[in-house]
């Protein structure tokens, strides 16, 4: 993609990235309370969106299981946080989500995209029901208490996981694994006949994305004293990342980050100012975004940029 033309912009954005990185790293020491909580929430959605897009972006397979892996993280935190250190709990949650995703992927990724989508949707409901039944029979409770962490601890943990997620997504895109994924997305049959192990490539990517979702879940859980299956496996955590990715644009990694940030913030404002109209306005914003920005915010900016520059890219 015209690497020579954009090296200057690339250097600039790298510097900008560094500034943002440092700012976000020291943020809790500068401010307190609400902003840190809001940013933790934004980072959570960055993780879910980028984790989701790692797999869905290149392959075009829409997974609706994000909430399942995220909720799994909740329960890992409920069980292990306290007895085990916070960092270990996050890792356990990641591994648990990874393993479950491998199993689910092995079962479903032979399916075509539409069936895969429906199955993953059912998976959230399935796991939620299973957890609810197990709790009813074994612990005879509805919810659980979670050992809490401080606002700052949760923020930093979320920040580290978010950086790891972005880094992983970036490295995958650049690697041969990324090329394999993209070719699967563009022509699965040709990819198979060119020597790509399609099923394995898909399953592994799906599981890596899920790993980060589980971690995000474990961190958020420690900010809630009480969880139950309804909270842990809320559909919002499944659908919002998909919408955020569409809203931000899926052609590169900045898209989902911007999508997650803007969407979370808009959601926050709407929820506090117009709690009754929240979903309605949200829906209208989304429809407008899909109609007028088919490639998301990033796509829109790129289009405008290209028009201003007067078509730098050579016509095909």
């Amino acid at each position, binding site marked *: 993609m015209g690497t020579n033309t954009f090296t200057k912009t690339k250097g600039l954005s790298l510097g900008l990235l560094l500034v943002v990185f440092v700012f976000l790293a020291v943020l809790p020491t500068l401010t307190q309370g609400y902003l840190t909580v809001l940013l933790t929430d934004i980072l959570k959605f960055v993780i879910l969106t980028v984790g989701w897009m790692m797999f869905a972006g290149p392959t075009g397979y829409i997974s609706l299981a994000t909430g399942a892996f995220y909720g799994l993280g909740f329960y890992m935190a409920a069980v292990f946080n306290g007895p085990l250190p916070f960092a270990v709990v996050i890792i356990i949650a990641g591994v648990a989500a990874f393993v479950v995703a491998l199993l689910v992927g092995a079962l479903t990724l032979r399916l075509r995209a539409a069936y895969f989508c429906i199955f993953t949707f059912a998976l959230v409901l399935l796991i939620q029901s299973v957890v609810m039944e197990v709790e009813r029979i074994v612990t005879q409770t509805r919810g659980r208490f979670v050992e809490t962490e401080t606002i700052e601890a949760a923020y930093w943990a979320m920040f580290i996981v978010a950086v790891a997620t972005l880094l992983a997504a970036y490295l995958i895109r650049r690697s*041969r694994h990324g090329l394999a994924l993209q070719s699967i997305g*563009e022509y699965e049959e*040709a990819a198979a006949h*060119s020597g*790509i192990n399609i099923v394995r490539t898909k399953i592994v990517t799906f599981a890596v994305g899920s790993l980060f979702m589980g971690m995000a879940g474990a961190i958020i859980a420690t900010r809630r004293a009480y969880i139950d299956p309804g909270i842990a496996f809320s559909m919002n955590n499944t659908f919002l990342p998909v919408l955020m990715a569409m809203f931000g644009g899926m052609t590169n990694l900045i898209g989902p980050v911007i999508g997650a940030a803007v969407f979370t913030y808009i959601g926050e404002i709407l929820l506090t100012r117009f709690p009754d109209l929240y979903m309605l306005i949200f829906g209208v914003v989304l429809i407008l975004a899909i109609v007028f920005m088919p490639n998301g915010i990033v796509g829109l900016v790129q289009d405008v940029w290209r028009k201003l520059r007067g078509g730098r890219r050579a016509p*095909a």
Partner: protein
Amino acid sequence: MHLLEGQGVTRQFGGLTAVSDVDFYVDQGEIVGLIGPNGAGKTTLFNLISAALKPKPGKIFYKERDITPLPAYKICRMGIARTFQTVKIFPNVPVLRNVMVGSLFGTGRRISSAEAQSKAEEALEFVELSSVKDLPAGDLTLAQQKRLELARALASDPELLLLDELMAGLTPTEVTEAMEAITQIRSRGVTVVMIEHVMQAIMKISDRIIVLDYGKKIAEGTPAEMAANPQVIEVYLGEECDA
């Protein structure tokens, strides 16, 4: 010993028997032409060899190993590469990266990115697409896309190359070039099986021709024998009349 051998290869789609009890073999270093009227089962046979489909029943052996149960990507890594009748490229991926898919994943061994790239560039050089290697593959003309597919197949270091109507839709000059390319590929030690409707080409460069009709193998032999075979002539004249 044959390089590739099929025994009683059969495949049905609903009530239609696309390939019916076909025995065939391909020897090392041959160019084998696979001909027959439309719907004769040629492409289905390719799909069965490359494991896009599984024969039911029937067995396919490659270097005396039963490859019938293997998935498509393993068949490719073992050294059987193919092109498609309707081109199947990765349209939004640059031409060079398209070919690198073949060299990175198709050779059956761990390969460095640098080596994969030089292999891909070499293959692009061979099909004369070096000048467009940075364009998205979808921007190429159909004839170029066909050459791109050939390059991707070659980049996977095949020992056996299955070409499905490589010459369809090409101008006479391009057909001559394609014929030269195929002869050159063979001289590098790659065995070729080609499906083709361009008769002058297939008659000229094939060592042996297999004729399919309604899923059955009706004849097999040298181009000269096939040209004189009454059954083959009947099948072909029949088709010419319809067309």
